[in-house]
């Protein structure tokens, strides 16, 4: 099956920042992304868990975007603007996609 090269960017970010991130992504021309829940995590700022939490503080989400390779820089700039002062992780992987016209 015909596949096309693309990049998959994964941004683990605080739930309170999610809306700002998606706004920034859309501004940067990234219109497709998928948000996955995160139940706990650990990093330089310690360990956290969503268990029993009422507020979204400390909660994180994982935002995944697949983009054409030439768009990845714009995406990273946009993402970095949002996560810069915040905890969180941005990673980029190579991937191949079906239906390239969608990206």
């Amino acid at each position, binding site marked *: 099956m015909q596949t096309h090269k693309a990049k998959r960017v994964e941004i683990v970010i*605080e739930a*309170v*920042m999610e809306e*700002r991130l998606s706004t920034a992504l859309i501004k940067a021309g990234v219109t497709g992304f998928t948000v996955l829940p995160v139940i706990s995590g650990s990093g330089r*700022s*310690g*360990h956290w*868990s*969503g*268990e*029993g*939490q*009422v*507020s*979204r*503080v*400390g909660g994180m989400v994982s935002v995944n975007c697949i983009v054409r390779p030439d768009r990845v820089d714009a995406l990273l700039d946009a993402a970095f603007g949002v996560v810069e*002062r*915040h*905890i969180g992780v941005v990673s980029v992987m190579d991937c191949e996609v079906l239906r390239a016209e969608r990206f």
Partner: protein
Amino acid sequence: MQGTLALAMDNLTSPIILFFVLGVIAAFARSDLSIPEAIAKGLSIYLLFAIGFKGGASVASHGVDGTLALSLLAGLVLSFALPVIAYALLKGMTRLSVTDAAAVAGHYGSISIVTFVAASSVATTAGLSPEGYMVAVAAVMEAPAILSALWIIARSSPASAEMEEGLIREILLNGSIVLLVGSFLIGWITGDEGLTLIEPFIVAPFQGVLCLFLLDMGLVAGRGLREARSVLTPGLFAFGVIMPLIGSVTGLGAGLLIGLSTGGVLLLMTLAASASYIAVPAAMRVALPEANPSIYLTLSLGVTFPFNLTLGIPLYLAVAQTLTGG
């Protein structure tokens, strides 16, 4: 005085406090007991819904007097002013950075709705009937403290806290404020008729739900304390106990000035004494990401909340009763 002690003891052995303690113990013992996130949120939605509606319905049946506006105003002023006091105290008592101190201070101007609920229960048990609109006062006090905290920061380092567009809307339209105020208004509009309809849902089971919610809070607070024990310096700990006392005194002053009932004074004292653990932390993560969340969460949920729950509220009640002659 003996009455106060007895009441404090009674309070200490009430189911809600014991369930909080159970949660703390379970967390410290590293039991895997936990309340799913969705259930914890559901419980909190229930509490806001019930308490807002009952407050509104009570206003509908008792009518509004001139003190309503004054009380709301007092709430506003306290919420704006308390962070300034808290900040000064923190700067004196601890070595927190400007950012951390301002973030913590913001929590103490705002309120904890569960503490408010606990005080309402104590009031009812003591035969008092606080003004129903105190719920609205609670709602009004949620947000201003956040602005105060940001203003404190902006004064000392103008660059770091530029007020991001959208943040104010986010703070004011915070889910718990909207649900509390919305339920309050609906309770007010539908009055006794509305209350009759949903009373079996929001009145009878309330205390039981509260127990479960406090179990969850105990678990979260215990886990926080276990993991962040190290941030709790003696100075911070002392602040977590002294600040609510100071807050309660300002609430007392305001309540007496306005002429609230004994129950109303108790609730205003409690609101002023309590520290936010939902609305303010979320706003701080957005506006002051450099502030360390374990400091303000541990202090608010792990020190001040249990202090108010166990010793604070009975004390405030005793003072309110003595000074209002209620």
